[in-house]
């Protein structure tokens, strides 16, 4: 555990010792704020619950993009700089390296999500916030972030180019998001399979509306675990090349 925490500390330090970490936070918050003001609060009069639902809807998009951006460098950068071999030769298991790197990205994302909390709280100025929905929405964002960060970690392990890693994880996430639309156009039993795989519409929508389902929690944890397992297999295979 200590080894994992050391990696987390090192990775987070890399974010916050330069201005990059703060800049990324600021840009993401600004974009999220604009969307909040323009989409959630804009337009016709809405109930606070609707404003919250819309906030979680577009913040899920920002979260997915943020998770891809944050995670794409994890292994790709190490390979590009040739420092991955140092990690390999350190007294660390593959799992410790993977969990440490993924956890650092997820922690960074969690900090971003925590910083967005002032937006739904602004609703309290003139409206009523249902804290149950708030909790549910953030739980959904947190789990979605974990899953996408894990997918990004896997993509990052595949290549030495950060850009390519970002593109690969973006493609995987987009496929999983669009599988909801795809499920309406394929025959059984694949319609059920694609609908089940839908990262956003099937599994995140209930969270943002305030409904917490065990099936959705299990799904996000499964995607996270499977992605990290794939990363582990990729790292193991890389030892032979």
């Amino acid at each position, binding site marked *: 555990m200590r080894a994992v925490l050391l990696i987390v500390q090192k990775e987070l330090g890399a974010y916050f010792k330069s201005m990059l970490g703060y800049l990324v936070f600021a840009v993401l918050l*600004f974009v999220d*704020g604009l969307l909040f003001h323009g989409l959630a609060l804009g337009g016709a*009069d809405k109930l606070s*619950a609707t404003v919250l639902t819309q906030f979680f809807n577009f913040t899920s998009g920002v979260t997915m993009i943020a998770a891809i951006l944050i995670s794409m460098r994890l292994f790709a950068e190490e390979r590009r700089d040739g420092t991955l071999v140092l990690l390999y030769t350190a007294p660390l298991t593959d799992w410790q390296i993977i969990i440490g790197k993924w956890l650092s990205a997820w922690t960074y994302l969690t900090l971003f999500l925590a910083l967005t909390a002032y937006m739904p709280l602004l609703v309290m100025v*003139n409206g009523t916030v249902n804290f149950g929905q708030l909790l549910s929405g953030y739980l959904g964002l947190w789990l979605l972030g974990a899953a996408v960060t894990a997918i990004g970690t896997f993509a990052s392990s595949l290549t030495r180019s950060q850009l390519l890693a970002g593109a690969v994880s973006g493609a995987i996430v987009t496929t999983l998001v669009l599988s909801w639309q795809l499920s309406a156009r394929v*025959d059984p039993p694949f319609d059920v399979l694609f609908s089940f795989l839908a990262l956003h519409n099937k599994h995140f929508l209930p969270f943002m*509306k305030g*409904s917490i389902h065990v099936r959705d929690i299990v799904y996000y944890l499964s995607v996270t675990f499977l992605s990290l397992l794939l990363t582990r297999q990729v790292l193991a295979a890389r030892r032979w090349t």
Partner: protein
Amino acid sequence: MFAILSLIAALGGSGLLFLGERIAGPGVAARPVLSGIGAVLVLVAVVVRIVSLVTRPTERRVLALPVAAYASMLVGVVLYGLTLEGAPVGPDSDVSTMLAVLWPIFWTAGAVPAVLMELALRRMEGASRIEDRRVFSLGSGGLVIALATSWLLVINYVATDRDTSWDTRAVAEVQASGLTRTMVKSQTETVTATLFFPPANEVGETVEPYFQSLAKENPLFVVERTDAERNPGRAKELRARKNATIVLHRGDNRQSIVLDLEPAKARTTLKKFDTEVQSKLAKLTVTDRYVYVVTGHGERSTTPRTDEAPGFRDTREVLQRLGYRIKTITTTDGLTKAVPKDATFVLLAAPASPLLDSEVSTLRMYMRGGGSLFVLLDPESEKDPELGALLDDLGVAVDRTALVHDSTFVALTGAAIDRRNVVSNRFTSHGSTAVLSKVSGRAIVWFSGAAALTKSPAAGAADVTFTVKSFSGSYADANENLAFDDGEKKSVFNLVAAVQLPGADGERGGRAIVVGDADIISDKLLRHNLPNQQFLVDSIQWLEGNESAGAEVPDIEDTAIVHTRNEDQAWFWGMIVGMPVMLLIFGLVIRRFLRREWGAA
């Protein structure tokens, strides 16, 4: 050479099998050809790999791994074949269900390691010796991925099938009201709700939890969801012409609700969805429960004319939806003799003139015999001494002065008379207010000109519980000037009484609900305030002997949520731009601090 040949044969064969079974499908001539060739090709992959094993005996150990992988794929294909029509197992058995789970596991557990190992072996073609540990590592890695994927799919299947959820929503899009839940709960025959929706449809996802929540109320309420286009037989059987149709059926009796697959188009119907379901359920329900409404003394009517006092049209509708049949009982048809034996309960709604002695005697006898009576009083109606005798039996006394509250009331007209529209969420934990007492934080019952109730000195053995009390600060407005004067006293008053009479020989005694205000369930208030409807439903349930103490608490009132736009735009903008800027400044400060630290170091 062997590597690429085997891989192409195994994957190509599986692809052909997929084309034959899934794309061509049953009844198409190409199906057996494609599936047959596919299965043979998978077999060929195994054979090719066995040949390679024989030709390179020194590397038998490592080359046995791909053979095992292809064999696993072949087992998957064979198991799949066993589930087909005409096969020994066939498609409709428990074994077939088990095989349907096993064949993809075997196939994946073979395919993933096979791909990884063959790619590794291809790289080593021409090498003096094969790195067996590398092949083994990749093969075992692939097997781990395949088995983990299978395991996760199974876990997810179970999680979906046995899903538990926590609904934290203040306002659900479609939510079953207490009345609908009670209607479902009181069903004695199986009613099925068949939802025709394609998978991954938002409207379907919205209405399904609604029906699932109803199914929890009564095992006789069954919910099934299917796709009309993929299950045309069921759609035809239930006469559902298209998807987005909900059919509620009991035997041959069917009631349909047609929505739209597009959420935007379905929204209008969804807003009244619960009422729509209630009306359809009512048409499905057959009952022999009767409510006898006492008439002939100026009581509030269940079919009021416009020039009359607020009637009970809405109450009649609620009763009908709960499956009651409504009959009237007057002096001419037996009220002076006996209450009919088929009466579930009798409704006495604010008589404006005295009842005959014999009529009161009939009601008293009915109560002593274990009957149920819903008595609604009205301070405006004439004082009826004979009714007083009935109330004495019930242990309740009425002060016919209307209650007033100076600050907490419902502003129905905007005039001072609104002060008589007192409200309350002070409910006792009693069977007749079990649901309301659980949601008292958001359920407020409205009254209009309510009279205070007290326990009668002649209560005797009657067990009287005052279930709803007024807010403190209420007072009986003796001079009817709607203001608090000398001689008037502010206090907490009893508004509703639930009476349980002792039963003879272990039988259930009579039950009565006495309310000091007939408007609580009149058209004046009932249609405007859902908690009043809940009060009516709970009261009826208790009168009939169905305690609702264990009932699931429904969301009976939408939380009032105020909109948040147009106000303090500058402030909002300040926050949205200000927050990121503050963060950057914070980052700069931290960085400068760290630089100083590093410099010092």
